[in-house]
């Protein structure tokens, strides 16, 4: 199908049908998923799906609809319905398409032409192999949730009545395993995966398998500790969950409405001077990169925190217009079924200078967090509370695995009390962080 034609046509039809402004997004996704358990294929799923979302404005009133049916009759109906929907809503002066028009897009090399040539057998083989190696790593590995391989090729288009007509072709592939160590009431699961744009850049199967196995085995015998305040180290793979909570509090519209504890913090020191955070979706070939955002703005590198000072909130063009701020907008979009909203795309908490081992070395007693069950941050109040697991640290070394404990505090205190930031950044997804240490957090556990 000629998606550019469909996209440009429906925008024209919406204008003809009464809209002042219109925008269409189209997605076409071809997917392959296989899971293997104990050596046998358990599920094999292949699919092609598509859909279109249409956003229109009439007198600054908004209507939105989507459809998975791209037949001419259905698209005709979609235009009619969306215009009707816009007439139901009330005008808000800031509503409308972004002010910018078409801009030159960077070539980020997000499409792997070779992926299409990889056979199903080869992909199934990888899923089988990663599970096999993970199961064979250690005698204490007793069971498996399986190995998997999945990939997707996506064509995405964004078209609007201000002349934007972008299409993007991208690929993604990933594989991993999840295995279980121990038996009865002492079981622990552990998984790991690798996700890349290019098939050839996937991490070695053996490395992913070993990490999955290690993450299960090392948690055997995990137990709660008694309630106390101690220094807490967040390892680099647990840290992104923490930052997710912090970033959620930086929504510009929430700040404007004063519904987030960060509302009055712009240009203030909100975190330790060690912390600098960027949003940077412009890295070529990277899994979380993209040339344009959810409303068609070209992506670029933005500074969120610089040496602990809050430099920006997240706005899309409508909320920026409303708040009267002139900033680089960043709009996320979850797919064709929703409109754009403000947010980050690819966040990197920049490396510190410490060797990761030095975060533990001088601790007499403390907690190393390797997994968080949630983000912890209450965006409204700024209270921090989360369940976690990891290791108890005694005299600078891992003493035993810990599970069933909570961390409690306030997010701003945690941010300010970061006293060490490691240099172990490993870019894997849309939120990346080195390991870091907080001087003191309340660890909630059992009575002894």
């Amino acid at each position, binding site marked *: 199908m000629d998606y550019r034609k469909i996209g440009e046509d429906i925008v024209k039809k919406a204008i003809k049908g009464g809209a002042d402004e219109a925008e269409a997004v189209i997605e076409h996704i071809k997917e392959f998923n296989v899971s293997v358990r104990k050596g046998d294929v358990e599920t094999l799923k292949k*699919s092609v799906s598509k859909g279109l979302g249409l956003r229109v404005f009439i007198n600054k009133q908004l209507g939105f609809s989507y459809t998975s*049916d791209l037949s001419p009759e259905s698209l005709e109906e979609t235009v009619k319905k969306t215009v009707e929907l816009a007439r139901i809503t009330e005008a808000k002066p800031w509503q409308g398409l972004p002010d910018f028009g078409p801009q030159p897009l960077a070539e980020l090399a997000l499409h792997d032409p070779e992926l299409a040539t990889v056979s199903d057998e080869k992909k199934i083989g990888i899923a089988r192999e990663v599970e096999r190696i993970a199961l064979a790593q250690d005698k204490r590995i007793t*069971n498996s949730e399986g190995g998997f391989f999945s990939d997707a090729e996506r064509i995405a288009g964004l078209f609007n009545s201000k002349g934007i007509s972008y299409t993007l072709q991208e690929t993604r592939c990933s594989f991993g395993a999840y295995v279980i160590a121990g038996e009865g009431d002492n079981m622990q699961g552990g998984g790991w*995966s690798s996700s890349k744009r290019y098939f050839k850049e996937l991490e070695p199967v053996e490395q992913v398998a070993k990490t*999955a196995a290690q993450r299960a085995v090392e948690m055997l015998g995990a137990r709660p500790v008694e*309630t106390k305040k101690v220094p807490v180290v967040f390892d680099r793979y647990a840290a992104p969950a923490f930052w997710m909570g912090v970033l959620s509090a930086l929504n510009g519209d929430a700040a404007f*409405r004063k519904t987030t504890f960060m509302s009055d913090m712009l240009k203030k020191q909100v975190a330790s001077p060690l912390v600098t955070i960027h949003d940077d979706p412009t890295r070529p070939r990277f899994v979380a990169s993209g040339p344009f955002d959810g409303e068609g703005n070209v992506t670029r590198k933005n500074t969120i925190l610089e040496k602990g000072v809050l430099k920006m909130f997240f706005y899309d063009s409508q909320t920026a217009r409303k708040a009267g701020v002139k900033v680089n907008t960043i709009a996320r979009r979850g797919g064709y079924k929703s409109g754009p909203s403000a947010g980050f795309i690819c966040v990197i908490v920049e490396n510190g200078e410490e060797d990761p081992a030095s975060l533990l070395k001088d601790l007499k007693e403390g907690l190393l967090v390797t997994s968080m069950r949630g983000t*912890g941050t209450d965006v*409204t109040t700024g209270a921090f509370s989360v369940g976690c697991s990891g290791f108890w640290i005694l005299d600078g070394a891992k003493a035993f695995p810990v599970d069933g404990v909570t961390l409690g505090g*306030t997010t701003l205190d945690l941010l300010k009390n970061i006293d060490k930031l490691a240099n172990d950044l490993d870019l894997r997804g849309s939120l990346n962080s080195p390991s870091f240490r907080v001087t003191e957090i309340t660890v909630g556990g059992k009575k002894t």
Partner: protein
Amino acid sequence: MDKVVRYHTINRRSFLKKGALSGALMISFPVWKCLAARDPEALLASDPAALSILDKEDLRKLLEVCLSRGGEFAEIYFERTVSNSISLDEEKISAATRGLDMGVGFRVLQGEKTGYAFSDDLDLAKLKEAAETAALIASGQTTEKPKNFTPLSPPQYYQVKVSPDTIASKAKADLLIKANAVARVFDKRITQVGVSFSDISKKIMIANSEGLYVEDTQTLSRLGVNCAALEGSNRSMGYESKAGTYGFEHFDLSLAEDFGRKAAEMAIRMLPAEDAPAGEFPVVIAAGFGGIFFHEAIGHSLEADGIRKKTSCFHDKLGQPIASEVVTLADDGTYKGAWGAVNVDDEGSTGQNTILIDKGICSAFLQDRLNAKLMKMKQTGNGRRQSYQHYPIPRMTNTYLHPGESLPEDIVKSVDTGLYIAKIGGGNVQPTTGRFVFSVTEGYLIEAGKVTRPLKGIMLMGSGQEVLKNITMVGNDLLVIGGGSCGKDGQSKPVGFGNPTLKVAKITVGGKKA
């Protein structure tokens, strides 16, 4: 593989969200209306009669294609879902949206293997292509032939007189305007009010090689009100919602008025909230939201996939005591009008009321077709899928604790120092270890048998094995609620839950004060 991969580990199972925390509405669950490609008019009609348009002979041929490689069982799942939502924000009707999801899924089973493919193109050639892809899970000659269809007329558990899809937006907007007006004038510290009404009309048709043919129309409606309050540097949120397999007749202006007031009341009550304590405490959970506690603490761990694969910590506990004697827990797809009610599940098995824990004894698992067959147990109507793009897996419907004998006020009085949990925001569990957490959105301190000061930042953490044995009192005031969405293996599904007031003798509370 699933969305949680963002955190770099493969996180298994469940994230349950409710009310204000979910931000936007629950609008993403698909539904249907079957139609054939040759009749585009039918695409737009809301008339359930259109369901039968799909030619049974075509279905039979497609099932034959599915079985052509030697599969043991084949199934076709049609879906047409219309989703509507309208929302009010900053005193204005700010958005109106409508969505259509439509497609056909093909599933082929052989032993423990599942082949799955779907098409959102209803052209017969495209459907045949998808059926061929699903068939590839098996490799051999045809061994099974599809049986003749016997239409199934399931019992009705939904409470729908007036389809919300047929209601003019004006009537829905009036609800939002009313709730907003009441919340705004309730207190001048209320700074933001958001109200939304969303509905889903999902028509499904399931036909399988064993001769099952069933159609169902699932209707879900939800009205939600969120309020934010501000006083000095204190911020708080309040929310109230009603959600179920309801028609529009369940929503009127007096309900909107009531919800506007209740959401505002909650926000104002929580304004002066203090830091929560940390450590082990007795906890009283109010009627309604405690169902999330059971959903996480035990429900996921009793789903048959984890049981069969022995990856759940409860896999060998059937017939054994796993909870105190006051605990009788049901998963009930037949609870009328409940958010998770199902006339049939997403593989055509009729909704059932299954007792999972009978006076403390583990008495059943949550079964779908595949696992029930492999485990030689009965299906329990828990084979559910998000949409035609997904294959069914064992899922909860409405999970609730049966009422006991205690009076709610006596339960509170029995606690000297502890916590009173009024509303829960969401939680998650790892079924392998049984460890779960859930976050509390409205909680209070109990001092000398009385509910006193509001608290913020409460997280409760425990293990299913331990905490169920620590339930010591159960009230007589069962309340079943809806509006939540449960995530498992990348699939989101509406689930209901409920409980009477109950007491957990001790559980770990994650707060700030050591």
